[in-house]
């Protein structure tokens, strides 16, 4: 039924002479975790894509062609993501895919996309998605390894050489914990305490007491996600620990300050994206216009604050539009080649410069080191 519609309707339109330019729409597929355990990531992503497609079509589409978004909700289930990826390619016949909110979902989509040779931009964090480089897979969020490097770089500047880690045992916390341990040596920093907590734990004072008493400790880093880091931050204040506390990019949102409490969050440092500090960016900043436009449009449309995660979808879509425009064609092969040659595209997460060896295209400058002061953000650099 849908097949006959897509073939007969454009044919009829052409016959009527109505479809002089829009002969075949560009179809972009998306499988996003808009519900389920990763909903707080996927929900803003899905909303962002819907908004951007609407905006783009109102402006006339890409090279005169309208863009159609085929959006599925995989509920954070990697198996469903695989099914939807197959459906997008075989039934909906999309030219490219954006999505894969979680690393698991991204890994299953990329397997399908690589087989079918359809370009895929992932919105998930893990470095495994683009390393080793796969011809058709790209991604927009920076990796947790880069977050670790950014934090350790800042610590080194402060003359900190002995740190304690308190990590969540969830996927995010465990992965970042492993990456941080991997790169910490490069900065001449030693981990003198290494504790964990369950993401649902109510109190971390036991772990923090242990960390506090570790010999020579100079700072604490908390790789984690969700409410855990807020509780750690509160307990940190409760125990009156007088050391710098670093949080991860996983909690880079205004919600974190609110949950942890203004007093407890005072002085906490974390690597965040330009989106979080849109108002504080310098006027010459390449990202400033992009970030401001996205923030304004999203907040006006959905009446809720933008999130870093919605920003990933924004960047994925911007890269795709840029690639299709540059390629002047919506052939998957041409889009892929164009994606790989994008340089200097300012997104909300950073300025992308893709190469054949780097399908992420961001460096450490994409992260801004932020410090919380008086319940708001300040840029440290």
């Amino acid at each position, binding site marked *: 039924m849908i097949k006959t519609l897509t073939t007969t309707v454009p044919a009829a339109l052409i016959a009527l002479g109505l479809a002089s330019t829009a002969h075949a729409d560009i179809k972009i597929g998306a499988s996003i975790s808009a519900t389920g355990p990763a909903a707080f990531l996927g929900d803003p992503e899905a909303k962002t894509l819907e908004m951007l497609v609407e905006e783009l079509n109102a402006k006339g589409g890409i090279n005169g062609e309208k863009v159609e978004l085929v959006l599925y909700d995989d509920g954070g289930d990697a198996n469903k993501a695989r099914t939807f990826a197959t459906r997008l390619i075989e039934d909906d016949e999309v030219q490219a895919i954006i999505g894969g909110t979680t690393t698991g979902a991204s890994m299953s989509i990329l397997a399908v996309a690589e087989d079918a040779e359809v370009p895929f931009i992932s919105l998930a964090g893990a470095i495994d998605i683009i390393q080793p480089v796969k011809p058709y897979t790209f991604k927009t969020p920076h990796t947790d390894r880069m977050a670790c490097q950014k934090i350790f770089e800042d610590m080194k500047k402060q003359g900190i050489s002995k740190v304690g880690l308190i990590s969540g045992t969830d996927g995010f916390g465990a992965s970042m914990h492993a990456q941080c341990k991997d790169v910490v040596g490069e900065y001449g920093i030693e981990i003198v305490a290494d504790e964990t907590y*369950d993401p*649902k734990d*109510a109190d971390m004072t*036991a772990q923090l*007491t242990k960390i506090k008493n570790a010999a020579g400790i100079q700072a604490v880093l908390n790789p984690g996600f969700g409410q855990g880091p*807020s509780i750690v931050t509160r307990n940190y204040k409760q125990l009156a620990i007088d050391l710098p506390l670093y949080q991860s990019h996983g909690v880079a949102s205004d919600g974190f300050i609110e949950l942890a409490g203004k007093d407890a969050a005072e002085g906490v440092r974390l690597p965040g994206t330009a989106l979080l500090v849109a108002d504080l960016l310098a006027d010459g900043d390449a990202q400033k216009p992009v970030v401001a436009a996205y923030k304004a449009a999203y907040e006006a449309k959905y009446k809720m604050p933008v999130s870093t995660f919605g920003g990933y979808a924004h960047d994925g879509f911007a890269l795709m539009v840029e690639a299709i425009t540059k390629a002047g064609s919506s052939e998957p092969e041409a889009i892929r080649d164009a994606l790989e040659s994008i340089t200097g595209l300012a997104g909300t997460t950073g300025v992308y410069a893709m190469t054949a060896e780097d399908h992420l295209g961001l460096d450490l400058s994409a992260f801004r080191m932020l410090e919380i002061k008086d319940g708001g953000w300040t840029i440290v650099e």
Partner: protein
Amino acid sequence: MSEFLQFLFSGLTVGAVYALVALGFTIIYNASGVVNFAQGEFVMLGGMITVFAHAAGLPIPLAALAAIAATAAVGVALNKLAIEPARGAPVVSLIIITIGASIFIRGAAQLIFDKQIHSFPAFSGDEPIHVLGATILTQSLWAIGGAFAVFVGLWLFFTRTILGRAVLATSNNRLAAQLVGINTDFVMTLSFALSAAIGAFAGVLITPITMTSYDVGLGLALKGFAGAMLGGMGNPKGAFAGGLLLGLFEAMTAGYLSSQYKEAAAFVVILAVLFFMPQGLFGSKSTDRV
């Protein structure tokens, strides 16, 4: 010494959370032998409704009362719409129904509220109390006190009131209970309402400590269930002590051994206790149920 005290306070805080959830299991279990796996969802509803009622302008005490009343109504609805129609089904089927109900409530909460993490201010401020170099938050005292109050209330209810005994009688033999004039349908409805209200009360007390979101229920229910099993299912004393002990095990393991092992250590202790005392620490000897 201050280190030990801090671990103790941490354990008591976590334990009070577990105990409050564990106590909620007691009434439904005593009335029907059903372990209500939607109990965690009641706790979530208590916290979430309070958050949203507070955001809508109600002061916290009123918001909390509204949350407890609304959650009790959800409990009654659960009994009327899902449990009562399945009357006569084996206990295992009823337990599976509660698992379904928990998934349903979680999904509904995600739609009605949102998917964000929320909290509301602690009742007596955020300043911790200092005792010999260790600190405890005032909200932890509220939680411990609340758990103790619920425990005493339940204990009096089951041992001192006709209604409480009617609940126990219904569980023991439904037909016999009906024959002596107990309105067993009412007892079931009441037990769901009370369990839901206790769950919501727990949610109100612990949300300033643990924060809440639509999906906190399952994790809380599992830990509360573990605490209730440790202490002896159905016994308020067991739920109270079991929850606190579980929290203390976790904190002491995290403090003196390693936080990597804290969950494992707590569950090893539970297994060991259940191996030697299958009824839990305070469980009564099994009544034969065939």
